């Protein structure tokens, strides 16, 4: 049976992980390759690297990092953040990324999704969507959640599916950082209205939150950052608990 995926997310700036990583057994917790390796060994199913470098120099360093990760890591990984053209994606895939996540650039020019899926195949095109509820309806936000758009989450999600997205990474801005659980109602609706995999993001605080994302939100994968980086949740413990709750999971 296809298993549910657990995906640690690493924020990258100028080729280093940022936003606090607290592993006492790691000599250099800022080195994305060392961290990625640790996650791969501890049972992560996939990794997501989100680049928040603002400078061209930072982007170049990202490519080097992707190459290093690809050389060392034996599980799939996605790279996102600032991806805005076919050339960007080509470079990332050639450097060894398995998938690429697009967000703001797709909002600006939705045809980009079609161009990418035609050229590289749907399987490597992840569309990241940041949304929050405004007056009871889910509104998509661009530029890392800073700019609200008029787009409805579910309409936009359907649009990107039709344009050839292979997967959706949905971050609920209402839940992100709260550690109060994922946006399960919205997730469940996305999962029932769409026929591509949905990654749940934003709100992970406890193991029960992951159980809910799969059982109530029908997510295909769940992504989290700080609970893994700070060791609040060990991936192996999490996966054992998921299995006890009859959620299909890979335990190697």
């Amino acid at each position, binding site marked *: 049976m296809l298993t549910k995926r657990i995906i640690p997310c690493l924020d990258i700036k100028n080729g280093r992980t940022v936003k606090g990583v607290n592993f006492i057994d790691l000599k250099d917790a800022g080195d994305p390759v060392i961290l990625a390796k640790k996650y791969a060994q501890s049972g992560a*199913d996939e990794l997501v690297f989100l680049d928040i470098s603002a400078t061209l120099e930072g982007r170049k360093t990202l490519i080097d990092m992707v190459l290093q990760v*690809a050389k060392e890591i034996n599980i799939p990984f996605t790279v996102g953040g600032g991806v805005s053209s076919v050339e960007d994606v080509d470079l990332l895939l050639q450097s*060894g990324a*398995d998938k690429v996540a697009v967000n703001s650039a797709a909002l600006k020019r939705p045809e980009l999704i079609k161009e990418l899926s035609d050229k*590289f*195949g749907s*399987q490597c095109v992840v569309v990241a969507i940041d949304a929050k509820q405004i007056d009871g309806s889910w509104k998509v936000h661009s530029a890392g959640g800073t700019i609200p758009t008029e787009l409805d989450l579910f309409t936009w999600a359907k649009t990107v599916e039709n344009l050839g997205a292979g997967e959706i990474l949905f971050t609920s801005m209402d839940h992100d950082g709260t550690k109060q659980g994922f946006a399960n109602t919205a997730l469940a609706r996305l999962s029932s209205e769409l*026929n591509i995999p949905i990654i749940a993001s934003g709100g992970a605080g406890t193991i029960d939150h992951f159980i809910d994302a799969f059982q109530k939100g029908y997510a295909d994968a769940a992504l989290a950052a700080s609970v893994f980086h700070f060791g609040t949740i060990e991936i192996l413990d999490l996966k054992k608990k998921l299995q006890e709750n009859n959620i299909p999971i890979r335990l*190697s």
Partner: protein
Amino acid sequence: MKVVIIDYGVGNIKNIQFAFERLGITAQLSQDTDLIKQADRVILPGVGEASSAMIKLKETRLDELIPTLKQPVLGICLGMQLMCNYSEEGHTNGLQIFDTQVKRFTKSVKVPQMGWNTINNLKTDLFFNVKMPEYMYLVHSYYAENCSQAIAVTEYDLLYASALKKDNFYGVQFHPEKSSKAGEQILKNFLNL
């Protein structure tokens, strides 16, 4: 040991090269007929769309060369699908090595299948020291129909062939290069065939 990964311009094939590097093997990317013929092991990779990939193989006449190879050949993902008789994706004939057809998953499941699923009913030394069932990483919208040449099966929508073998030709639907330790074992086994 000379390993050649056939480079015919589809998808990201560096990851396969990196996976061999982790096993201490330098695999060469090439579409040179002589190099491919002389290699000890040949990999036919592939990510993307079947009919355009077939066109690329034809442009370089690799479609004629590959079925005549005598050393162990391993098709990965789309590479395996291209070694089958026919694919529904772009309605194209394949290399006619494996006697089965490639079809699209139905709408009753999410497409593409993306993630880790189990391989079962493992046969041949390609799976030496691999437990049964074992998890492999898969990303695909089309599958090869189960048949007598299947050496592994996976269940998604239905039971399909996730690995195939005929003579010196092997094909795997999953990505051994991205399937952690067990995937590495399979690549090692391929080198040891």
